[in-house]
């Protein structure tokens, strides 16, 4: 009895280990059918955030398209670099893909960043969302004017994802305009939202769609949206351009692979993503996320898109 118990347990252990080892370092040949085993899907941010929601939204569709499972793994930290590093330390065989968001790409502005844009190859841009500064519903800061006035008296804390991110660039931009804003990094979304709701930070930089539940629940509200024209769902909230601040870094989320991956494999993933993005379900989700309905950019256009975004970011970044 005991032996049997022990045996069945150890078999279970081995099975689980085998399952987990699915993404291990088997040497893949170009002739091998791709994908033939599970693809590790790295989310370089904590569970519950925008990058995580995207991955969890598209993973089932991708699984159907590619006919292998895509276990999503959250590896948060260092503005997404910890997770990206995880993907980059895997072999370039297409069995490890990652979400890359604008925040992480913005780190390229700093030449000391360990990874280069040439280390990655984008498969597709999946979503582009406008961002905003938010305040808690009961905040004494009612309008953008209040923020400007207050930020001249004392430093205001802004909850951001991490240093060097697009979030941080907005803060630096306003620093250049004489406003005292301080970026406070909270990589975990839950801590970032607690900071604003609990009054531990004055402002929150976030994408509209990511805080939908807090907006619907009347817990926080946008005070300025970073865009050129007003956003239909928030007609009474001013946008940055009309306030004279020509800053609007699009917050995009892309799916990337390690460069050196076989071009056919990148195309296979890109095509699968295109089919997922074309579904009504995905389109409805984009709308629900307050995202641009023409968000999708395939592998062909994604490199140019990312380079262009990076140029805009460079333009706003502080000169060193």
């Amino acid at each position, binding site marked *: 009895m005991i032996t049997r118990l022990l045996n069945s347990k150890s078999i279970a252990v081995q099975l689980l280990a085998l399952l987990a080892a699915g993404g291990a370092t088997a040497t893949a040949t170009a002739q091998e059918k791709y994908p033939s085993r599970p693809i590790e899907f790295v989310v370089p941010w904590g569970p519950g955030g925008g990058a995580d929601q995207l991955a969890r939204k598209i993973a089932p569709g991708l699984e159907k398209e590619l006919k292998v499972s895509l276990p999503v793994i959250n590896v948060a*930290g*260092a503005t997404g670099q910890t997770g990206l590093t995880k993907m980059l330390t895997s072999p370039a065989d297409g069995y490890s893909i990652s979400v890359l968001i604008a925040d992480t790409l913005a780190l390229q502005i700093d030449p000391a960043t360990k990874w280069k844009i040439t280390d990655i190859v984008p498969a597709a841009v999946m979503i582009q969302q406008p961002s905003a500064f938010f305040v808690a519903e009961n905040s004494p800061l009612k309008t953008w004017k209040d923020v400007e006035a207050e930020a001249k008296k004392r430093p205001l804390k802004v909850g951001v994802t991490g240093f060097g991110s697009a979030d941080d660039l907005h803060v630096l931009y306003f620093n250049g305009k004489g406003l005292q804003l301080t970026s406070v990094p909270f990589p975990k979304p839950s801590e970032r939202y607690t900071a604003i709701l609990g009054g531990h930070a004055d402002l929150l930089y976030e994408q509209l769609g990511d805080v939908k539940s807090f907006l619907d629940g009347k817990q926080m509200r946008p005070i300025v949206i970073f865009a050129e024209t007003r956003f239909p769902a928030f007609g009474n909230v001013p946008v940055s351009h009309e306030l004279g601040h020509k800053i609007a870094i699009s917050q995009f989320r892309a799916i990337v692979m390690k460069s050196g991956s076989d071009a056919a494999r990148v195309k296979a993933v890109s095509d699968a993503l295109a089919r997922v993005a074309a579904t009504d379900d995905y389109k409805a989700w984009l709308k629900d996320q307050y995202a641009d309905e023409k968000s999708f950019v395939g592998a062909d256009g994604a490199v140019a898109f990312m380079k262009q975004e990076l140029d805009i970011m460079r333009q706003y970044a502080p000169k060193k």
Partner: protein
Amino acid sequence: MDGTLQQLAVGFGHVFEPVNLMFLVIGIVLGLLVAVLPGLTLVMGVVLALPFTYNMHVIPAIILLTAMYVSGTYAGAWTSILFRVPGEPIDVPLLWDGYPMARKGDAAQALGWTLVSALAGGLVAATVMVLLAKPVAKIALTFSTPEYFAILFFGLASVVSLGGASLANSLISLFAGLLIATVGVDDTYGAHRFTFGVPLLSDGIDYLVVMVGAYGLGEVFLRLEQGFKSAPLEAVKEIKTRLPSLSEIWSRKMTFVRGSLAGIIIGLVPGAGATVASFLSYGIESQYGKRRKEMGTGIAEGIIAPQTAATASVGGAIIPLVTMGIPGSGATAIILGAFLLHGLQPGPQVFATSSNIIYAMFASVFVGIIIMCVIGYFATKYMVKVLEFPEVIVSAYVVMCCILGAFAARNNLTDVWLLVIFGVIGYLFERFRFPVTPLVLGVILGPLAESAFMTTMISFGNDWTIFFSRPISGTLMAVAIFTLIYPVIRHMRHQRKTLKSSK
């Protein structure tokens, strides 16, 4: 109030539907399995289960994940107590008293205490969750990074001063652990630390290889040196599996109360989950418990405190999730993901719009805890018999588990080598009377403390006094510092006395 109970009754109705009950039991079993395996953490387990819930209805999906979460805080205690291999970081404090207790031949009692503790902590927290969710949720918002840091600092400090080992040795061990934890890409600025250009090291050293290596493998090496006993612990055969008697439980009621409270509060705050709850509760017990001097020698209090807190943290973590949409822990963050994927947004409005789902979740916590304990009770009976096996075989099994666990964490053989290295380090520590515990503690809590510290410094303009000027963090810091200094004062007093008497 009546409304609450009525809705809870509806929730129970949902849970007892055959399909939902089936998923509940599946969730419990998966949670137990995940908790027992050192390579799979609870959060990873819930993450792996999430994709299976995509095509399910929302209620069974939430029930499945909640059930996994509940039982995931419990079963890792088994391996901690029997093999000195913590299945989860949560269970590290459980082996400090649980394993010595088992070595004394009281494994059945140790497992019994875990069971009662999980039951008590879980049910107390679940009751608070249902009745006081809204008022209690506000507590979560009063905690910010200075408080997170103070909690972690208290956890680090209180355990260092524990047990018979010298304070100096404990501190050396702790700082070694903290240093190991700094390896990799730093969380705040993305700087590479001690990576030496090795890609795997920039990923950091997983606390898992340290934890499993230093405890599990270290213990096997130690027994290898001492020579395995062919039939260890003769006493085990005579002992019947038994749960503690009511009077035994009653005499330790304050330990249960402290553990549950610590668990609920730590569960509430987003910066910490079951692991921190478990460590902190053990720390509190070793400061304020009736038998604080005996902690670490294999007493029931050392099992009750961490286990009640760990399971109580589940109820605590669910409160801010359903009332504000803020997950109180890693596992609830995944459950939030499940809510969102089913088009449901937790927050103040959710009680109005989808109260049946929320109350089904609440009910599943109650039912889950009870089913978990029933399964645990019967499993315990057989598990204790493992100790009748020759020690050599049990040790071989432990080694296998450790290696599989280390490999499964990142699918990398280097981790297995790291495991062996930490096994040797753990063995040498034991051999030269350096406590292993502070080392492991440093590796697990160090990164959390560091990021809380850094964020606080940035947030408050590098003003370190902030840790002392805020009421909650100030109190915790003061207690922690006293804990650290007290042994030194005692030592100096003692020396002065002996000096006087020698004169």
